[in-house]
């Protein structure tokens, strides 16, 4: 066993199951099951294939404390613009919502306790059933320990015009101890509904915390959900997240996961195409520097025939950063006429950065189209010389090429304020003064 598991009993009091007697019995059962599963397995060690490349050692050596139950403060505006044009709900330290329940454009956003009063039946069939506690120890931990959850309910046929923004904001801890939060989000998009969800994870700069979020998404028949998941945690924080979407017949799910922050960040993103004619687009983009680690673990599961998925994950690595991509595509027996494509591209801007990329195709049907490809490269020297030979200085040339690498994904972000912010965050550049009309390629 690893060193981590040996020291596990010391942290058990903090990470173990916390009973909340006011909760319904099915939820108590779920939490108990999750806690038992976690206690049995402990944190993953290096011998766990799924966690082999994720350097958890430093995280698990920390001394932890519970995050404070503080009302959500407004996130620092220098990191996050006021709003992207829709409704924003802020959740402080994974505890309470800034508003307990709000209806907007027909969509309802509630705390778990309020949602339980009205839709207990629906919740019991979804909560903990999309991201199973058994799927990963950190998800089990979240399930056992999450305080409140955000429940978003989009009724049948509802078209939500403006984006819904959920900001999980960590106030962290100024001291030595690392504050732990377990944000939880459940999205139920009923048949024929349409919505754009922006999920942001961040925290106060220079504070230490460990955020362990879980997001579950149900996309009903013929529903369409656009999901942005943006991680801008503080530079000294840890982020281990899991998100999974389950797609019903002829539904459409479009996910864009962006990671810029955190000392160590891992997200497990799962998409299950459960019924036929559903389609999924998964895009991922990260930019890391210093000694940052980012791990994108994705699973796209084709469980029904005539579904398609496209996955494009790009990483930009500077200095001594470490990027990991593990992309599994599973085509279940009977999922004929599957069309699944996966690409992972990494742009390495220093000699000391490390990339591990690992595509995994598991195909159990015979009439399918599956492709994958991975590249790790530096900035194109010839392109740099070309730009410099036109008078553009080397730093600007590098930034332009880096921008171009990311822009391939960012240009598809339809929501302009969100796109501009993501561009600014990715470049952090003093050299470029963008004039959007000119930069834009048609």
């Amino acid at each position, binding site marked *: 066993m690893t060193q981590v598991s040996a020291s596990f009993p010391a942290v058990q009091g903090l990470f173990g199951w916390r009973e909340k007697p006011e909760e319904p019995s099915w939820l108590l059962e779920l939490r108990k099951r999750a806690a038992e599963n976690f206690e049995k397995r402990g944190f993953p060690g290096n011998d766990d294939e799924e966690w082999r490349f994720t350097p958890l050692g430093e995280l698990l050596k920390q001394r932890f404390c519970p995050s404070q139950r503080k009302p959500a403060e407004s996130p620092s505006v220098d990191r996050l613009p006021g709003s992207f044009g829709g409704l924003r709900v802020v959740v402080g330290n994974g505890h309470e919502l800034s508003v307990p329940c709000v209806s907007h454009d027909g969509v309802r956003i509630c705390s778990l306790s309020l949602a339980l009063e009205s839709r207990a039946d629906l919740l019991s069939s979804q909560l903990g059933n999309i991201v199973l506690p058994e799927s990963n120890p950190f998800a089990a931990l979240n399930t056992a320990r999450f305080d409140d959850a955000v429940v978003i309910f989009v009724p049948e046929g509802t078209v939500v015009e403006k984006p819904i923004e959920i900001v999980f904001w960590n106030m962290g801890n100024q001291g030595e101890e690392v504050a732990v939060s377990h944000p939880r989000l459940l999205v139920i998009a009923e048949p024929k509904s349409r919505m754009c969800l922006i999920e942001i994870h961040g925290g106060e700069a220079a504070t230490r915390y460990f955020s362990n979020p879980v997001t579950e998404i149900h996309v009903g028949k013929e529903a369409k959900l656009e999901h942005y998941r943006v991680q801008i945690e503080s530079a000294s924080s840890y982020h281990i997240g899991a998100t999974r979407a389950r797609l019903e017949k002829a539904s459409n799910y479009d996910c864009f996961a962006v990671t810029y922050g955190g000392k160590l960040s891992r997200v497990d993103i799962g998409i299950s195409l459960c019924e036929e004619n559903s389609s999924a687009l998964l895009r991922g983009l990260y930019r890391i520097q210093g000694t940052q680690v980012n791990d994108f673990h994705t699973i796209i599961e084709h469980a029904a025939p005539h579904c398609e998925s496209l996955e494009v994950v790009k990483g930009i690595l500077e200095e001594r950063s470490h990027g990991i991509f593990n992309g599994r595509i599973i085509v279940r027996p009977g999922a004929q006429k599957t069309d699944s494509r996966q690409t992972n591209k990494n742009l390495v801007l220093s000699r000391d950065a490390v990339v591990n990329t690992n595509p995994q195709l598991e195909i159990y049907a015979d009439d399918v189209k599956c492709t994958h490809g991975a590249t790790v490269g530096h900035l194109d020297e010839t392109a740099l*010389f070309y730009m*410099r*030979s036109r008078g553009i*200085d*080397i730093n600007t040339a590098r930034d*332009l090429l880096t921008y171009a690498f990311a822009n391939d994904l960012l240009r598809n972000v339809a929501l302009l304020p969100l796109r501009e912010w993501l561009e600014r965050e990715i470049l952090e550049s003093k050299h470029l003064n963008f004039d959007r*009309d*000119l930069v834009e*390629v*048609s």
Partner: protein
Amino acid sequence: MAMLEVKNLHVSIEGKEILKGINLVVNAGEVHAIMGPNGSGKSTLAQVIAGRDLYEVTEGDIIFNGKSILDMSPEERSREGIFLAFQYPVEVPGVSNIYFLRSALNAIRKHRGQEELDAMEFLSLIREKIALLEMNEELLHRSVNEGFSGGEKKRNEIFQMAVLEPRLCLLDETDSGLDIDALKTVANGVNALRSPERSMVVVTHYQRLLDYIVPDVVHVLANGRIVKSGGKDLALELEEKGYAWLEEQAAV
């Protein structure tokens, strides 16, 4: 006064000597053609003058307007007025042609102590220049050279040259891959830029381009040395006799 002086230039790549003592003087307003067989070092010479760091200058010097440029970066050389039209223009996916060009122009203007152009001034300038090359304006908004045909790429090079208004134009095999109509258009674009203050060095394998861009001096490069220089008639002689007779001379 000489605009460009190449003095006993020796250049190697990965220890292999490619240029073995080039001497060349180009005065302001002159057009020089550098001809020669494949592998003779023509393109290397053009790239070394533009500052490509793939190559190592082991001996000699390059003087531009009285100053050695060997220690200058490619961007400094460009700002001083040197322009290389690439044999294989580079595709830069995700960066629009127009943004690229505006960044370049403003960097050069700043160096010259001129005001940067704003978007409107810039657009009116490039509309004027694009007409010269008979280019489709739509290409401006596409990624640099991405998905351009061979001819469009070459026109784009000369278009950039027209916008940036360099003092020394190095044209590296600008004729390669062009049909006769495109060749005429490109040559017209180049000729429109000829002026007493501007020099050109035209690198080409074939005489064909020189029917349209008529040089003042023709040099023949073989095995890393200039083996013969002459007037524009030398190009015609080469067309007739080929390069073999000169290569034999060079080997001696």
